[in-house]
């Protein structure tokens, strides 16, 4: 029983980490129809910036929002310098499916190399702002620490706030309209360029939070080649796809399901199977619902 509860907590905890990245990817997808594989790189960069800020200020709580702001700025810059031109040339035809992916992969490589230039390829460390020792119930220490709780609450807060923005505010409507059909959005008086930049900026901020939180929640160490970030990227993307890409709650749902299934497999079956199960889960979900948990199907065909 205790093990089962722990399994749930571990799964949800892991899911919340995937959710951080999935949210950022969904944000970019929803505001520009690009799958941003550089998201992990941008999160990594923000984490390094956060590291510098923690060094300078000595306080994680100051560093986090500052890193988010800088992450947003960087992300906005990427949108202005790269994505705009990219989209102009490759919105239609066969290249539309693959070129943005390759471009963001290129950007990922670029960011990694830049980080290596500046900070070297060795690990840097950030100390966690909260205890990572699990809460105690009597004798039992459960698999939920204040640090885990912070991550969970951040995910919750992000989904609520961003979900509200997307679904209920005019900014959200502008973001969606600009993504789906820029020309019509323009004709409706929306400053499409600026709106997309804002979309990327929000994703950049979310990505920065993802990077920093996952780092301090994990080992506390990062390097440009850190496996954690590669996994965060791929599992975050898988979670977003399972969730349906169109919806933030979907992304979180996808992430939590992924986290829970993997935790259950690791604890009750075998840790050997995680990667296979991740694939199997994705396949299974998409076979039943090709548009993910909360994705929407295209309207009518003719």
């Amino acid at each position: 029983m205790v093990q089962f509860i722990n399994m749930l907590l571990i799964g949800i905890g892991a899911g919340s980490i995937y959710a951080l990245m999935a949210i950022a990817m969904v944000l970019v997808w929803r505001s520009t129809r690009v799958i941003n594989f550089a998201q992990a790189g941008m999160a990594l960069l923000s984490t390094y910036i956060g590291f510098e800020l923690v060094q300078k200020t000595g306080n994680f709580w100051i560093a986090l929002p500052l890193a988010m702001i800088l992450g947003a700025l960087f992300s906005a810059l990427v949108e202005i310098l790269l994505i705009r031109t990219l989209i102009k040339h490759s919105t239609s035809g066969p290249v539309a499916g693959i070129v943005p992916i390759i471009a963001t992969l290129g950007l990922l490589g670029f960011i990694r190399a830049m980080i290596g230039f500046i900070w070297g390829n060795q690990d840097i460390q950030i100390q966690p702002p909260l205890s990572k020792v699990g809460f105690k119930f009597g004798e039992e220490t459960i698999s939920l620490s204040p640090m885990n709780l912070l991550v969970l609450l951040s995910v919750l807060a992000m989904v609520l706030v961003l979900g509200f923005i997307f679904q209920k505010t005019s900014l959200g409507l502008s973001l969606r309209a600009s993504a789906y059909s820029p020309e019509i959005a323009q004709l409706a008086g929306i400053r499409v360029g600026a709106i997309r930049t804002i979309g990327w900026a929000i994703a950049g901020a979310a990505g920065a939070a993802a990077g920093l939180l996952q780092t301090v929640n994990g080992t506390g160490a990062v390097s440009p080649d850190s496996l954690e970030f590669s996994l965060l990227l791929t599992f975050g993307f898988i979670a977003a796809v399972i969730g349906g890409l169109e919806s933030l709650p979907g992304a979180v749902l996808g992430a939590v399901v992924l986290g829970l299934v993997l935790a259950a497999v690791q604890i009750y079956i075998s840790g050997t199977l995680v990667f296979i199960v991740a694939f199997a889960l994705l396949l299974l979900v998409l076979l039943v619902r090709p548009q993910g948990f909360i994705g929407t199907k295209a309207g009518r065909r003719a």
Partner: protein
Amino acid sequence: MSLVVQNLTVDHGAIRAINGVSFTVETGKLSAVIGANGAGKSTLLRTLSGLNKATEGSAQWGEHNLLSGKPESHVRSGVSHVSEGKSVVAELTVEENLDLGALWRRNKKEATETKQQVIELFPRLGERLGQRADTLSGGERQMLAIGRALMSKPNLLLLDEPSLGLAPLVIEQIFQTIRGIVDSMNLTVVLVEQNAMGALKIADTAVVLNLGHVATSGSAADLIADPAVRAAYLGY
């Protein structure tokens, strides 16, 4: 305020779509632009709304230079464009598409009022507010596109083939409505139509485009009477 287009020339790469076009539309007037397929009608409207870049010439809407600036800033100065081919955002609901047109408007109460007016104009849209636009029928989408443009409370409305795909009764209604808005709200309209007869009947003035040139222009009534125009564009 009036719309003054002078010597406008627009190229699509190597193709010259509009060649030295000049015409004027006075405030509160409805001007029809007719011509065969490929005459350059859509290009003309797209240039006026900032979607296409002009090669030469000028286009003024009162003080506002229509040839500079982005489409979104034109909208904010009161120029609304319903582009050709059911320009709605397929993934959004009907209501969201309508709201989209008024997003930039500060006065939300007025925007809500406009929405009511649009829904009165197209009751079908009212029944479908929560439905995704890509599930609408062809004609319903056309209504939505016009509705969205009206949501911006334009004073210059550029309509590209609004009758396309609409039922005869609705076309009749829409033409009457457009005439009605022009008269009651002092709206200025440039109406591009394949349905030349219908358009000329409600228009004050008209421009006939042929291969990017102005073939003739003048008052709508004169053009209806012109046997050459009748033969070429009105089909009898």
